[in-house]
């Protein structure tokens, strides 16, 4: 389609951190509270109030930096970004500008050709969020400052992506990392992970970048893809017609699938950044960085590789089991109790995930704990119940929270392994179906299934199917 142009995309992602308190005061960051109930002189921007940096935010920023291969700055500076807006109580946002906490990182994403592509991360810096405006109503707009001063990381990429798909790959990996690190809840709808995309086109082979448009605040992976694709189309048409792309900020409307200009270059703010004199330079020593590094969880890509090597799982299984930290933790707990990785993997990707999806339950809240599930798998292993029966038992454990042994006992589901009892049932069936038994003897093998089925039916599923098979063979040779 636009084979004449190369697409260039850089992304800025705002990651809202899950600290209990705000970045510069002690107010709670809980979502969905009464407007302005979680405020104090600092986050209201009252005269004379001063910010004090939340150490936890620094810790989270270091985590994010290390997980994205960035260098942690031994000394960084907070700066004021000055502009007027009613949701910005001080008339400036405290952010970082010239010396951010971490810079020069990268992530490797899967590219379309099945290989890996490295996307540069320019910087990750800490900043405070603004409040929210509630529009409408007779009295005009209202301001809710509960969100003001909640901590954000801004992750700025290099313009290294060449398609909407690459942009999505990068975003999904970044999203997975921040959730894995336990620093962000990853909720796109509530705005915990917000993306701005800088998109430009240039004729293939040209080195210098084309003029870019910035797409603001898009809150789902699907919309980001749509917005970028729309923008690529729009710019290509403009260029094809001999027009020029103007530098501007555009707002994407998910309902119409169209973006419109919000402000041009002339209206762009001059933010008058300067170091915030209310905060001293942030010093992060080597020991702090090393402590955070030592406490970092294993990252998903490393985990996936390890599952393939250590547990000999197929890459697909390893990918599914490592994609979410909660799932991986569940899996690892399960394997440690029931050291048959493939069996564990099958159960997790089968029954466990199916039930979680059907019932819309998060893995952390799964009523069947790894301990309960391991107990169940143990009963399959020692032939107490069949695999099929185990699914029924799983359901019961989910409902009641009882152990597999309790459920099996109470419901009398213990598999019958008493040869005499099974043989008696089998004899009864052979007697009632002499004709079929003769045909089987004559070599009509598929009738084996019929006899097994009849035994299972009569035993209410409790007979051990393997044992039934053996007994049938014995009868045939008698």
């Amino acid at each position, binding site marked *: 389609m636009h084979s004449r142009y190369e697409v260039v995309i850089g992304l800025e992602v705002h990651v809202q951190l899950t600290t209990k308190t705000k970045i510069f005061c002690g107010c709670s960051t809980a979502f969905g509270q009464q407007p302005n109930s979680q405020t104090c*002189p600092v986050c209201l921007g*009252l*005269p004379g109030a*001063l*910010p004090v940096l939340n150490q936890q935010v620094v810790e989270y920023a270091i985590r994010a930096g290390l997980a994205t291969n960035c260098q942690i700055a031994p000394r960084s500076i907070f700066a004021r970004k000055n502009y007027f807006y009613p949701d910005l109580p001080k008339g*400036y946002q405290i952010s970082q500008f010239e010396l951010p906490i971490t810079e020069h990182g990268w992530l490797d994403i899967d590219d379309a050709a099945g290989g890996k592509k490295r996307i540069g991360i320019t910087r990750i810096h800490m900043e405070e969020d603004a409040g929210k405006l509630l529009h409408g109503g007779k009295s005009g707009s209202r301001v809710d400052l509960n969100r003001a001063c909640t901590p954000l990381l801004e992750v700025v990429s290099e313009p290294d992506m060449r398609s909407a798909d690459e942009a999505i790959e990068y975003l999904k990996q970044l999203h997975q990392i921040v959730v894995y690190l336990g620093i962000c809840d990853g909720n796109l709808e509530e705005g915990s992970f917000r993306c701005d995309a800088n998109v430009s086109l240039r004729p293939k082979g040209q080195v210098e970048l084309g003029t870019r448009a910035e797409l603001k605040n898009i809150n789902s992976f699907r919309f980001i893809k749509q917005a970028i694709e729309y923008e690529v189309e729009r710019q290509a048409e403009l260029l094809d017609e001999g027009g020029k792309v103007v530098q501007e900020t555009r707002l994407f409307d998910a309902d119409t699938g169209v973006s419109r200009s919000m402000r041009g270059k002339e209206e762009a703010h001059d933010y*008058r950044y300067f170091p915030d004199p209310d905060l001293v330079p942030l010093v992060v020593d080597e020991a702090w960085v090393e402590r955070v590094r030592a406490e970092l969880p294993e990252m998903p890509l490393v985990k996936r590789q390890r599952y393939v090597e250590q547990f000999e799982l197929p890459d697909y299984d390893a990918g599914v089991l490592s994609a979410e930290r909660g799932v991986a933790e569940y899996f690892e707990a399960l394997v440690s109790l029931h050291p048959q990785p493939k069996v564990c993997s099958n159960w997790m990707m089968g029954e466990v995930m199916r039930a979680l999806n059907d019932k819309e339950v998060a893995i952390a809240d799964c009523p069947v704990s790894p301990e309960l599930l391991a107990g169940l798998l143990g009963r399959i292993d020692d032939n107490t119940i069949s695999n099929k029966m185990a699914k029924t038992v799983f359901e019961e454990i989910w409902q009641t929270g009882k152990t597999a042994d309790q459920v099996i006992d109470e419901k009398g589901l213990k598999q019958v392994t008493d040869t005499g009892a099974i043989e008696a049932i089998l004899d009864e069936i052979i007697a009632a179906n002499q004709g079929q038994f003769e045909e089987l003897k004559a070599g009509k093998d598929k009738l084996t299934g019929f006899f097994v089925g009849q035994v299972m039916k009569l035993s209410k599923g409790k007979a051990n199917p393997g044992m039934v098979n053996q007994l049938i063979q014995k009868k045939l040779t008698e």
Partner: protein
Amino acid sequence: MSFSQMSIRQLQQALREGKTSAVELTRACLARIAATDGRVNAFVTVCDETALAAAAEADRQLAAGQAGPLTGIPIAVKDIFNTAGVRTSCGSRILENYIAPYDATAFAKLREQGAILLGKLNMDEFAMGSSNENSANGPVANPWDLERVPGGSSGGSAAALAAGQTFATLGTDTGGSIRQPASFCGVVGLKPTYGRVSRYGVIAYASSLDQVGPLAHFVEDAALMLGAIAGYDPADSTSVDCPVPDYLAGLDAGVKGMKIGLPREYFIEGLDPAIKQAVEAAIEVYRGLGAEIVEVSLPHTDYAVACYYLIAMAEASSNLARYDGVRYGVRQQAEGGLTGMYEQTRAAGFGDEVKRRIMLGTYALSSGYYDAYYLKAQKVRTLIREDFLKAFKEVDLLLTPVAPTAAFKLGEKTDDPLQMYLSDIFTIPVNLAGTCALSLPCGMDGQLPIGLQLIGQPFDEVRILQAAKAYEAETDWHKQRAPLD
């Protein structure tokens, strides 16, 4: 009982001995305010009722033997300190109705130690000025000569003392705003080292320069007040976590063997002859007391005023952005939606000098000008600080005039901002260097007091207080009182 020559410690003793009461002291102050403030205009808010109620409570505590270090002492604070429940207008129309929900740390400490708040003191709007003429509450008159300015921006804090309305006050000093009015009004004013006293709850003018300090009649009172307000505050990231010495303990140690430096750049042509004479006489007093006097150089002094105004205005332009009419303060209803409301609110709410500084500061930070102005000013600031640190390798403290002249006439410099800015030429470098200095009375130019500035090493307030006390013990300037009946 006459209190006008009594130090805070003497008042405390009188209170403990029952020779007076907190209520009597407070009544005396309120009466003096009522009698004189129509002419001086030092107070913007007088807390008659709450002050008397607090005094009665102080007397109960005194009677029960539970008195704190300041119990029953009436004080007043500049209207830049947030005081929960009492209006804090910062000399501005934009905050004329503003009542803070919390106390500034420095004021809270005084209150906790038993001090009684008489009221809030007049000041230049947002502490921007050197004459206290830039106040929405009208100018303050100098009690020594009502046609003259008291200095600024803590003009009310100095004039209230000179008028005998209170025993100690708090001011703030960004470029001389405690020392210059102290000098003009013949009282002691101390600007502590940056970081020594918490700025939390003090309305910001220029955050990297602002510092809280006491004004008082006597050096000993200033030392006592500093001890009461100094110390690390977790709510102010720029306050410094180092121990607070007992400022009273070594106050009488004298200056024998102390090395005092005279920066030659401060003894320039054009220094008013009366000032020169008074400061030279003070130098002789110190020589007589056994101090060694040497000349030193602070070579970057000439750049201090320009450097200061760039940094202070840049920070101010950002600090004052919060006064937008959205959440508190006076909002102007206007056509033109949000932008119209912002423009009208700020146009009507701020005075001319504040607007001038916001505009200049905004310009200095603007894209394309930042490096030439703000960044260069920060580099010069580093050089000025290094000048001081180098000088302090040779001497224990520095001695200079506080201001080039004694108090000037009301209106004399209002049309000439540059002349006004130059009245802080000897005080500004201290703020840029972030160190401490005090002003104490050292002579008279006719009927007008002259101030002597002692500049100390960072966090070495002890030594300048000792040196000031030694001078005070040798002279009578601090005993003079303004002829205000």
